[in-house]
């Protein structure tokens, strides 16, 4: 089949009433939680994962991805109107977006953000469609040795590109790997690390960990940190940007899209990193960098385009190689797994309707999101005034039902509550929990591929440096590690993330 045929197949899948409805539902939910500060896409997807079990595979995945990129649209609304980032990826949008709102240009900021995001989403969707088949045919030549090296590289690179201290992130990955080993050993059938509990013989469910660490502990942390009152809004004015706004922002949107698409591909990359990088790039190339932070439209356009592009291009490694690059993609991986589909090169050849249907739905979803966000902005703004007090009991209930419904047993709910406590401890220890999820989903894959490799070579590890692709990955890993030890690189990295904390 040619490219056009495949794209046509995708659209015919995505446009069925049911899939269209789930795409809309995902986009709506994504906007909703993007607008509401205190609920992130990670927690939402964790809560909804068990529900997708009841849906056809494509519909469930379309909905979950809609939530992810929808949240990037919604996050900007809160950032501009109340100076609170609805999502982590919208933190930089507050800098110039809120200033624009204070000058009475809130409408223009929101419109630029939405249109920029739509453009970025379109480009990133196209990138997936082009890169998918190419990369996955390349990945078909991967043996177990290549996968081991790729995963080691992916895990380490993820710790370096994610914010926070690298050592702690490595520690979190290791804890994730360890948790992934709980249960019956795939190869030998031995019980491992189960405390003798029968409920753990099948291992810990991804959803239990995700809901515990991202659902419960996030609720606890939110209740601790802020009061649960609603927020005050900047007034919303005329929606359409001026000609000058368009003139100033189109180049920024282009640059943001480019940088976002590229950074989304990298392990550990994703929406947040992309928006920060796009903002600092924009500041660097600008003729008037001193004006940033006072309400320049480029400061909104670039990060918003970038976070949306990255949210979508981060699907590429998952869909083509089967390796999730950040914790959102780890969630997506388990959404596929619930239906017995292992994402990777074989999906493209055996179930092309899943890949192309998802790609097509992303473009449709972006279109829906512009409609949802621009004319209906007033509705979302009203939602902002709902106090957290009324929201968190609902989230709590959905979390509990979600965990319970997987195996219909109370053990999982109690285990999730335990992970909630653990997640709380991680928060107090300032450990970012994302890498743990990554380690947890990659752990079993890493172990089985490592075993297979060494079984084939009868215990000779030199295969990892003899296979060229594997060697390249390992060299890249060593270079990354060496860079981390070099003090000058560490300083630049810390500077890069400083804006995030400021």
């Amino acid at each position, binding site marked *: 089949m040619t490219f056009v045929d495949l794209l046509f197949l995708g659209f015919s899948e995505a446009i069925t009433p049911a899939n269209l409805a789930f795409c809309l539902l995902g986009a709506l939910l994504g906007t909703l939680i993007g607008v509401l500060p205190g609920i992130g896409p990670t927690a939402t997807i964790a809560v909804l994962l068990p529900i997708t079990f009841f849906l056809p595979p494509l519909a469930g995945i379309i909905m979950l991805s809609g939530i992810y990129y929808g949240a990037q649209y919604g996050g900007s609304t809160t950032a501009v109107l109340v100076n609170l980032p609805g999502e982590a990826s919208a933190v930089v949008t507050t800098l110039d977006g809120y200033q624009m709102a204070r000058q009475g240009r809130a409408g223009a900021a929101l419109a630029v953000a939405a249109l920029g995001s739509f453009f970025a989403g379109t480009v990133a969707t196209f990138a997936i469609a082009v890169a998918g088949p190419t990369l996955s045919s390349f990945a078909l030549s991967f043996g177990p040795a290549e996968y081991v090296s790729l995963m080691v590289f992916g895990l380490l690179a993820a710790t370096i590109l994610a914010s926070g201290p690298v050592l702690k992130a490595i520690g979190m990955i290791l804890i994730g790997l*360890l948790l992934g080993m709980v249960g019956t050993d795939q190869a030998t059938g031995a019980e491992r690390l189960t405390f003798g509990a029968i409920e753990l013989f099948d291992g810990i469910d991804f959803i239990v960990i995700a809901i515990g660490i991202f659902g419960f502990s996030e609720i606890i942390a939110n209740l601790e940190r802020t009061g649960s*009152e609603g927020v005050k809004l900047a007034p919303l004015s005329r929606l359409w940007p001026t000609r000058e706004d368009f003139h100033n922002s189109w180049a920024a949107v282009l640059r943001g899209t480019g940088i976002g698409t590229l950074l989304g591909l990298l392990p550990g990359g994703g929406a947040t990193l992309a928006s920060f990088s796009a903002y600092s790039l924009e500041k660097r190339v600008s003729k008037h960098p001193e004006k940033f932070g006072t309400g320049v439209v480029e400061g909104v356009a670039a990060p918003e385009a970038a976070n949306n592009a990255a949210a979508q291009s981060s699907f590429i490694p998952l869909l083509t190689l089967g390796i999730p690059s950040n914790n959102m993609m780890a969630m997506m991986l388990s959404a596929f797994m619930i239906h017995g589909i292992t994402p990777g090169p074989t999906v493209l050849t055996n179930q092309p309707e899943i890949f192309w249907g998802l790609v097509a739905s992303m473009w449709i979803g972006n279109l829906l999101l512009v409609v949802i966000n621009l004319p209906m902005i007033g509705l979302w703004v009203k939602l902002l005034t709902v106090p957290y007090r009324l929201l968190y*009991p609902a989230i709590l209930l959905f979390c509990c*039902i979600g965990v319970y*419904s997987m195996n219909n*047993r109370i053990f999982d*709910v109690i285990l999730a509550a335990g992970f909630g406590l653990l997640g709380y401890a991680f928060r107090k220890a300032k450990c970012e929990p994302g890498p743990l999820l990554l380690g947890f989903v990659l752990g079993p894959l890493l172990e089985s591929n490592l075993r297979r490799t060494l079984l084939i070579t009868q215990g000779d590890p030199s295969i990892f440096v003899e296979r060229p692709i594997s060697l390249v990955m390992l060299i890249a890993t060593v270079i990354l590690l060496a860079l981390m030890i070099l003090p000058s690189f560490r300083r630049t990295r810390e500077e890069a993330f400083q804006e995030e904390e400021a």
Partner: protein
Amino acid sequence: MARLQDTAKGDGPDLLSAGLFIGFGALGLWMSRGLDFGTLAQMGPGFLPRVVCLLLIAVGLAVGLPALKRPAQAIEAIRLRPLLVITIAVVGFAFAATHAGFVLASLWLVIAGSLADPGGKWRHVLSLAAGLTLFGALVFVYGLGVQVPLWPF
């Protein structure tokens, strides 16, 4: 004042992370003590757990030892109320769901969970509990067919 702070040492959050890492590593090592290590060609079930645990302890030491020497930084204050209330509400829900049915469990979860935030009004909490329970019963139990009894009898 600055004098006083200089004498105290130890980066609280980092020490806590080190403790968590080393704790997990040690626990994992202890639990995998009976598992066969195997050889590189025939990895036993205990191979990777032990390697990972040893790495974890090493990372814990690498995070913890420098943190001992850094100037003191306290861990953010822990507020027990949300922590305890949410945990107890969830555990209570788990037991109630199988023994007392979804309706009572859900009412318990929302009402008990609301106590985590002291500002709420009872009228709001009760109507929220009733609304969410109805929604949950319709969507999850009837709609999606989650296997849970609705009533205790």
